[in-house]
């Protein structure tokens, strides 16, 4: 019971920090709130006993990616620049669209939702490192290796894009 309360608190905090990401005016604050959001998501992974993913999420997202974001913000020195405000109309449209997206998704999963209240997990050991490691290095070995190629490509691309722009400008 207490776990349930904790998870509800965590979930509400996740949503709250996500809303702050979207609505804070300052980009740096957005990044900070995003990191917070990721923390909460990680904690939810832990709640579900997905330990491996929780760790990876923590390291990759909250650690690597967010630092990257911060670096870029700092690099471009945008923290003081006021972001242009979108028009009311398009904001309204965005909210309506987002709201209806939410509703539609809820409707789409309504059967699962009603069923899910009494549904119980079969195996809570699934998210352990050992289990996933087995899967990853047997069944998904090729895919795993290919991700390295993807990373190399991303690295090369990033370097190229960040380096060669001077020739492209003129």
């Amino acid at each position, binding site marked *: 019971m207490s776990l349930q309360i904790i998870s509800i608190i965590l979930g509400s905090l996740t949503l709250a920090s996500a809303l702050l990401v979207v609505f804070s005016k300052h980009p740096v604050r957005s990044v900070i709130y995003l990191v917070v959001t990721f923390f909460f998501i990680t904690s939810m992974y832990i709640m579900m006993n997905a330990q491996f993913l929780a760790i990876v999420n923590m390291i990759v997202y909250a650690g690597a990616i967010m630092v990257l974001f911060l670096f870029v913000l700092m690099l471009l020195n945008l923290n003081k620049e006021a972001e242009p405000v*979108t028009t009311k109309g*398009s904001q309204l*449209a*965005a909210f309506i*669209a*987002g709201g*209806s*997206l939410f509703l*539609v*998704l809820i*409707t*789409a999963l309504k059967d699962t939702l009603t069923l899910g209240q009494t549904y119980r997990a079969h195996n809570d050991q699934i998210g352990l490192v050992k289990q996933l490691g087995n899967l990853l290095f047997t069944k998904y070995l090729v895919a795993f290796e290919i991700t390295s190629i993807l990373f190399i490509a991303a690295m090369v691309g990033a370097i190229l894009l960040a380096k060669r722009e001077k020739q492209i400008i003129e």
Partner: protein
Amino acid sequence: MPLDLTLIIVLSLPLLGFAVNGIFGKMLSKKLVGSIATIAVFTSFILATTLFVRLDGTQIVKLFNIVDHDNFKINASFQIDALSVWMSLIITGIGSLIHLFSIGYMSNDEGYYKFFSYLNLFIFSMLILVLGSNYFVLFFGWEGVGLCSYLLISFHYNDKHKGVANSLAGRKAFIMNRIGDGGLLLGLFMLLGQFNSLEYLEIGQSLAANTHLGSGAMVFIALCLFIAATGKSAQIPLFTWLPDAMAGPTPVSALIHAATMVTAGIYLLVRSNFLFELAPSIKDLVLYIGLATTLLSAFIALRQNDIKKILAYSTVSQLGLMFVALGFGAYSVALFHVTTHAFFKALLFLGSGSVIHGMHEEQDIRKMGGLAKLMPITHFTFLIGTMAISGIPLFSGFFSKDEIMAQALHHNIWAYSILVVAVSLTAIYMFRLYFLTFHGNFRGGENLKSKVHESGLSMTLPLAILAILSVFGGILNLPGLFFKGSAHWFDNYLSQGTFGLEHIHNVHLDFNAAIQLMIFASTVALGILVWAYFVYFKKGNLAKSDLELSSWEKLSASKLYFDEAYNYLLVNPLIKLSDFTGKILDIKILRNGVYAIADGVLNTANLSRRWQSGFLSSYLFWMIFGLILFIAFYILKISI
């Protein structure tokens, strides 16, 4: 010479003349061109005479096969019988006289060789028309003469003042004839459908063998043929082209628009007598149209001032008279009048041509007068022609008209009384024309008077020959009360030698009625002669200028407003329709409709291009919108 060879030579000589004159005419001298053309036609005439002499029943000469259809064959074949030979005699005979006349008349014209080649082509087409043994060949000639008529009416298209008018007159004639041709074509289709043949003989025989053929079809065929005849023979409602056709050179008017081509309609009806006998309602229609035409055109002729226009309306009137005879079923009578009319109307036209030639292209009788002394031969022959057409006793016109009157008296007293009025009107306007032209003082000014001259021999000789024929032409068909034995020679000749006419006997009035009729007619004609003498000769009553006319005269002078009515009823609506379809329907609706489709595509493209605003957020928005739609669709699909 065998019969078919003779026939082919008769036909081909004018064609040869046409070809020679048309191709080499420019290099040859005028004398030679005229002689070639005249000799070609004259030789044809001689050979036609031999045909006439050797005539023995009906003979068919087949040349070649034109169309070989599953159901029928159409051959280029020719028929020699009393009717066709008689017609070809008139055509070649009068034709050669008029050719002779043209040598003198056209001597100053640039297109001399062209004129003669057209004339020869006309003779050829006309011969095809009358000699053909089926309606198909007849149609060849029928359109051929229409074509030549067009070419000859608009012959002087380069004239400085009247060039455009001439060409328009030619066009009008051609178009009006085409309406009639359309009728003939429909009739031909129906005939083919009914009989699977277009041969006169085959149709006639199958009709005789099988009398219960659909009478509706017969009425339709007869009506179509009659429409064709009204076009070619200038009857109401298609007569207005003939007066305009006087724009052509005078020999053309004499040959085509008086003596030969306009009688093609009569020929067609006589030829199709077996069809008309089966369609009595159309026969009645022929009668009424004939009556109306003869009366109205005689009325119009009363106050015309152009010498050729008067003669043209007179022609229309005489043709109406022939149709009256046809309406009564008196085919040989009509053809007899065709013959005498060919004589005296050709004479009158040539006489008027001589006058016009002498007057240096002046055609208005108000500017003539006193020409009797200046042009004695012309005057004398013209007088004979006038007396013939007016029905002065013992001239040819008297006999032929008398026959028609007798038919009318026998069948329908109302028709007879209308005819009496029409014939009297004929006499009145003809004597008016005669007196105003040849007597009184010369009104064309001294300058012109000094130039007026009598025409040369080539012109006066045909006049003389035609005058003799006009006087004695009546002998051909003397009524019974003169010579018992040889009376009605022409009637007998025709009805014995022409298919379908054997069984049709003209009514011949008994002695008393006939003589009463003749005396009455003579009295009327002579009375009018005397009256006209006093009014126009003694009193010197001149043609008034247009402004002084009283109301009925105005009506007559303006041709009963037929042209205006046609313009108002047919031509203008057609022009409006054409403008409407051309400018509104075609361009505004159809063309712009197509453009509208193109524009629609273009606009849609522009619209959707604007959608691609380039703003990522809007793309994102639409992406999510699409996502929502997809999921919503999925939900609906699941739940339904």
